[in-house]
């Protein structure tokens, strides 16, 4: 691996994003608007206080998953990936370059979402808005890493868009948002416990309720493992030689 080449990829991806202002706008605004909608839905109840942190986990994760998987698929179809792979670029340089670029966007996106949730939607994060934001960024990076992995299995835009529900919906359903995981049938509980987004939900709940980092450190570590595993799997499935 070469840090200089990784950074070259990161800068190029950011240049591409910058040339598409509407995408930047959507990236920054959509998670906040959705969080706002949920807050509004539950105006007359206390529910938003409970599920607000989960929304901050969910929306940036989904948006980053989609944007990343489509961006990398586009690169594969335009031939630029093939060209880059005939040059002295390691597969990890490319993947980590993408991950860095979208992580940077995730930092900005999450900051906007958390600020919106706290100041506009009155979400009580007295437990520690900073901890919540940090975990939410990690979650968005997880979305990017899974997006990189998903795009490896898609040959067309139609396929990659369908990977969103296929990869993401089960994680939302089994993550404890609709029904607590310990009330699921045993098999589903076990599956739900190890799905990447479940760790995100747990860590954000803990951070929002004011728990110390030691209480959700294992969840954060598990998210990290999922990110690394996704990148390694993506690198393995990315082939220089193609039919």
């Amino acid at each position: 691996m070469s840090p200089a080449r990784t950074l070259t990829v990161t800068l190029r991806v950011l240049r591409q994003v910058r040339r598409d202002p509407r995408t930047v706008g959507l990236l920054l605004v959509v998670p906040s608007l959705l969080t706002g909608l949920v807050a509004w839905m539950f105006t007359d109840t206390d529910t938003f206080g409970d599920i607000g942190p989960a929304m901050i986990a969910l929306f940036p994760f989904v948006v980053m998953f989609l944007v990343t998987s489509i961006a990398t698929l586009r690169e594969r179809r335009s031939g630029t990936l093939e060209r880059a792979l005939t040059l002295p670029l390691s597969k990890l340089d490319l993947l980590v370059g993408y991950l860095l670029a979208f992580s940077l966007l995730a930092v900005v996106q999450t900051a906007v979402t958390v600020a919106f949730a706290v100041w506009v939607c009155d979400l009580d994060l007295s437990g520690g808005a900073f901890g919540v934001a940090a975990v939410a960024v990690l979650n968005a990076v997880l979305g990017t890493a899974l997006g990189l992995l998903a795009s490896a299995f898609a040959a067309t835009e139609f396929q990659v868009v369908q990977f969103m529900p296929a990869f993401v919906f089960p994680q939302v359903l089994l993550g404890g948002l609709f029904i607590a995981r310990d009330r699921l049938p045993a098999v589903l509980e076990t599956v739900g416990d190890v799905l990447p987004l479940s760790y995100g939900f747990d860590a954000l709940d803990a951070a929002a309720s004011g728990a110390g980092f030691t209480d959700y450190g294992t969840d954060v570590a598990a998210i990290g493992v999922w990110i690394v595993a996704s990148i390694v799997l993506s690198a393995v499935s990315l082939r220089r030689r193609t039919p």
Partner: protein
Amino acid sequence: MLHDVSLTLPTGGVTGLLGPSGSGKSTLLRSLMGIQRGVSGTVEVLGAPAGSPTLRARIGYMMQSSGVFTDLTVADNIRYFAGLLHLPRAEIERVIDLCDLHTVRNSPVSAVSGGQANRVSLAVALLGGPDLLVLDEPTVGLDPVLRAELWSLFRSLAASGKTLLVSSHVMDEATRCDRLVLMRDGRMLTSTTPAQLLSTTGESDPEAAFLTMIAPHGDPP
């Protein structure tokens, strides 16, 4: 798919890889670049097995699809690939000069003409001044003026000692090459020179010579 292709290219000059669409030209070139799956046999380029990491900075490759980012500017495209090759800024300016891209350097590739977009792809292939250039149909879809311009660039590169392997399905381009490799249906028909091709077939233009060449090997197309 390719069968029984055996071919050795000398250093220097322009070798034309000619044959109709679907004859296996791109597959052969991709095999040389080490990005074709399912190659059996040996492919050696500049003394190393095709696709070796040591070759990656030494061959300029222009693929059939554009292989550049249409949403980035001309200069940003070249800057990106130059960055992957660890090349200095001066090298970016050199290939922009060489491919005459000054006027459009700050335009997104999606907004430039087809000929210019083609030259962006070529400029990227020329980065670092590689000794071997593998160009897959670089003149496809270009008008005759642009084609002539590109060929004079190819000739000047060859004159400076570079080796060029250029594929085309336009037989007229054969006359601009030093050597020719003719392909059809994934098989190599012959490796020859333009003059030899015309004299052995007794034809006056390469198109007719090619049709004559392929006749004994099967039904004429």
